């Protein structure tokens, strides 16, 4: 197990380095550069000042050297300053990271539980009205734009009924309790997330239902509930858990739209603002943290897969 973790962790570090380099390259292709932006703010600048500043900022260096310099300071915990907010980038990113983890973590737990339950019921009760109702719900989930669903919820619960705040973050001294700000964003993410996962669970359950050992379990007279839980769900969960773990990172980055609709101060909204505001350092770190979440998710998927399916050894994992 330890060897597996070390090997997998080493691989993840290499992948992360490669990804951070690609992100660095892309940020370099964003409009303007730090010196241009300084110059725009200062009409008195002379051409030799520009050259001087370019040397100070290292903009005249080849990209690989700039990346090495950035990586060197990043490894010392120095991610630079935000151009827009004039604060160290980490000071801005960490609270947003916490907010997004709270939002997507809650949505993740709820949507996983609901989706696995619905998918299992739909698979076992295949062809019944219940199955069709669940299927319809799942279909809506995968076909709805999350931001539009958010808009509808705002109209219903905030504008029309006035029960919940339309968006924003809790502040001390407000009438609404802090959790009220989470209800609609979480609900939106859950509805959208449940669809695909419930469909996947259902098809995994159907795959297992057709296998011999399930027929044997029924034939030897086990209670249907026991067959469903011990023999079907347990086996069906192997591929499902992998998909769930792989989805963690994408849920994290996909929450961006929901965060924007509900003016939620999370990583997604911060990423968008940083990219739109040409805030290079901030955008870089936002993308980097989001990528780290995805890498962690895929590591979890590998571990869960190996742990749930004893046929796949931790060392000799076959490529899917």
């Amino acid at each position, binding site marked *: 197990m330890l060897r597996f973790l070390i090997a997998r962790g080493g691989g993840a570090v290499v992948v992360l380095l490669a*990804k951070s380099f690609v992100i660095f390259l892309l940020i370099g292709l964003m409009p303007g550069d730090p010196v241009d932006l300084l110059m725009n703010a200062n009409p008195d600048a002379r051409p030799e000042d520009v050259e001087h500043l370019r040397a100070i900022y290292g903009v005249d260096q080849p990209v690989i050297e700039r990346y090495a310099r950035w990586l060197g300071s990043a490894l010392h915990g120095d991610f630079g300053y935000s151009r827009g907010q004039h604060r160290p980038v980490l000071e801005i990113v960490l609270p947003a990271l916490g907010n997004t983890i709270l939002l997507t973590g809650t949505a993740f737990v709820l949507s996983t539980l609901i989706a696995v339950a619905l998918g299992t019921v739909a698979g076992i009760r295949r062809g019944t009205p219940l199955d069709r109702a669940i299927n319809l719900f799942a*279909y809506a989930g995968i*076909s709805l734009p999350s931001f539009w669903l958010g*808009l509808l919820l705002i109209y219903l619960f905030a504008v029309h009924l006035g029960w919940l705040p339309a968006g924003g973050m809790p502040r001390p001294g407000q009438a609404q309790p802090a959790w009220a700000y989470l209800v609609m964003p979480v609900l939106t993410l859950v509805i959208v997330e449940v669809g695909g996962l419930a469909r996947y669970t259902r098809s995994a359950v159907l795959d297992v239902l057709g296998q011999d050992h399930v027929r044997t379990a029924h034939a030897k007279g086990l209670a249907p509930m026991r067959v469903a839980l011990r023999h079907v769900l347990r086996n069906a969960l192997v591929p499902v858990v992998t998909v769930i773990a792989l989805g963690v990172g994408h849920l994290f*980055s996909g929450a*961006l739209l929901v965060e924007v609709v509900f003016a939620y101060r999370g990583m997604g909204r911060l990423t*968008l603002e940083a990219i739109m505001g040409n805030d290079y350092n901030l955008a870089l770190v936002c993308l980097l943290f989001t990528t780290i979440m995805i890498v962690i998710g895929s590591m979890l998927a590998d571990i869960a897969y190996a742990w749930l399916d004893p046929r796949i050894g931790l060392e000799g994992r076959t490529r899917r």
Partner: protein
Amino acid sequence: MNMPPPATVWQLRWRRLRADRAAMLGAAALLVLGLGAAGAGVFESWLGVSGVETDLFSRFDPPSAAHWLGTDDAGRDVVARLLRGGGVSLSVGLLGAISASVIGTLIGATAGYVRGWVDAILMRFTDFVIGLPWLPMLIILAALDLTKLGLPAAFVRSGGANFWRIVAIFALLGWTGVARLARAGTLALAEQEFVYAARAQGASPWRILSVHILPNAISPVIVATTLAMGRIVLAESGLSFLGVGIQPPQTSWGGMLNNALDLIGTAPALAIYPGVMILITVVAINFLGDGLQSAFDPGHERR
């Protein structure tokens, strides 16, 4: 006795697809949307309305004989805008999905046929792209300054460039699923006797791939392409909603929703129509995709 000629596999698939009511409903809905988008100009001149020209004397008009769904905050006809937005969404979805599939098929088939280190590198690269944060990547690719890549500034600033940039972004990020399917199909088929026979007869690798392998591996790719189109329509509306997708004066459903977000208290209807259109389009595409899947693979339980 006169026996009818045996049906080809594609005829059988077509029959099964035609018998699938949901798939046919989806196809019909897409056809209507496509025709509506193509006829947007005719529709506008027929009713004398415009989805682009602003008219500050008829802001927020209620539905009438000329403006079937009323006008928006700039006096533009909502139906005309929905039709125009449909054209943009469908063409971005179709072009994006097809180009992504072509890239994915090329990469996957190469990896599966050549194998060895080429396969290893291509699949590592595929994993790499899959592991990028999708939505933030779409946003940053939409925000890149293309002149820094050496493209002429006049082209980059032109209206058409924005549309093609969005299509290209989806092609660049969306090929991974198809690549895996094409690789798996190629790997399995390359071991079949008829492929050995073709190789023994001296067929070139290109001929083996294009004549013997790809036609047999294509059905999951077609299904994946259809379902990818639905996801691209969703993602395009999301990007345009964020203001980084299709830019004005081109109309998009996501852009209309962006506009409606600030007006949700005064004109909630403006937030309803574009979303309903997106929902109908994506459901129709998914119906068609699921129908194709069961038509291609009838032995398998319908998911």
